[in-house]
């Protein structure tokens, strides 16, 4: 047994993290050489914080491993895009494959990690990120359900509160679910959480808010993580 006691690193002297800082904090926790899929939108920016030396290899569900950074200028090739349909580049050692093979890879548990945005995550790791549930919304799921059930680890990147101040880490999701009990960690602007499958959600680090204050603002049992 480790002798390290549970504790939360509180960065109370400063405000919440910006979007770029959130991506940076998450990127720090991606293991060397991992195969990673970054969801469309903010999760894509995590790639900006990983150097080639990390050995991390990016998968894009539209049929590629070894995806490089965004393409600009003459490097833009309409045949080479990412899942968000933006032009990207190819790194040495890349491989192309078709959609059935790409999703077999995702669903078969071969990706080490995916990073997804979310409307809500529940204390047990349920994810809601594809549908607002509003009557006039046009639902669009893309590959979110496949990634959520298939990746070995699911990291969520989101602000912890809505613009109205409602928490997005909840005891039970009210939005339509993407998948049950799939999220492992949540990286937010004010705290990083670990979902363990137990009764409590663990808190590793906070920014601009104390652990005690976080407890009062979330309707979810929290405990300090073991560093």
């Amino acid at each position, binding site marked *: 047994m480790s002798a390290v006691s549970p504790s939360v690193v509180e960065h109370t002297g400063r405000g919440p993290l910006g979007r770029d800082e959130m991506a940076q904090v998450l990127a720090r926790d991606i293991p060397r050489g991992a195969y990673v899929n970054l969801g469309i939108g903010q999760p894509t920016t995590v790639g900006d914080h990983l150097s080639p030396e990390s050995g991390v290899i990016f998968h894009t*569900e539209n049929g590629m491993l070894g995806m490089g950074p965004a393409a600009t200028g003459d490097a833009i090739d309409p045949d*080479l895009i990412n899942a968000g349909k933006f032009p990207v580049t190819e790194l040495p050692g890349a491989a*192309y494959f078709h*959609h*059935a093979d790409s999703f*077999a890879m995702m*669903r078969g548990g071969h990706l080490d990690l995916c990073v997804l945005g979310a409307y809500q995550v529940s204390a047990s790791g349920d994810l809601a990120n594809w549908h607002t549930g509003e009557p006039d919304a046009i639902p669009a799921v893309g590959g979110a359900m*496949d990634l959520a*059930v*298939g990746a070995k680890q699911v990291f969520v990147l989101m602000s912890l509160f809505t613009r109205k101040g409602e928490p997005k880490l909840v005891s039970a999701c009210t939005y339509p679910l993407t998948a049950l009990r799939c999220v492992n960690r949540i990286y937010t602007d004010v705290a990083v959480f670990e979902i363990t499958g137990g009764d409590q959600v663990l808190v590793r680090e906070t920014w601009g808010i104390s652990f005690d204050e976080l407890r009062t603002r979330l309707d979810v049992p929290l405990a300090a993580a073991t560093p």
Partner: protein
Amino acid sequence: MTLLCTSVDDAVSGIADGSTVLVGGFGTTGMPFELIYALIRQGARDLTVVSNNAGNGDTGLAALLAAGRVRKIMCSFPRQTDSWVFDELYRGGKIELEVVPQGNLAERMRAAGAGIGGFYTRTGAGTLLAEGKETREIDGRTYVLESPIAADVALISAHTADTLGNLVYRKTARNFNPVMATAATTTVVQVRHVVEPGELDPEAVVTPGIYVDRIVRVPS
């Protein structure tokens, strides 16, 4: 046997009203634009279209939707910044939508092409998209039974074909095209280049000619 057509209009001839049509591409990448325009000219209507998206801008699949030829669309991601044609039809109740998780879309077409009668997947379990579907516990996890998507016609694009119908693609323009080629009774391919048998590397052929019924070259 694979037929080399001299025009895109020949290539889409005979597509019947009410057909189920697979349309390749992911967004506009790898989309068979010229075949879609030929299908608009050909006139088939009341179509069920299976494609990853529901059209972008006013071109390609969006133009087919705008022409009022599509009764139903099955796709994973209809809502996009430039999906205004679909959005208006959908909000006006003029098109039916079946949202299918992207992996199920691909795997269900693969199943049709591979003679699989149905398969169990974890994708969608416990969500709206599995409502009313049969489920089964396997090794303590919930799986959903999904059925094949077979089609009358696939309209796809590839980079190069040989005259036997063997196909290679280019970068992420490959996407849904190869799996769609396996799932349709008639597969029609637009390509940028046509070469003689023996000019493609047999180790690098992605779609063997057995899956290809008609090829037409379009200017690249």
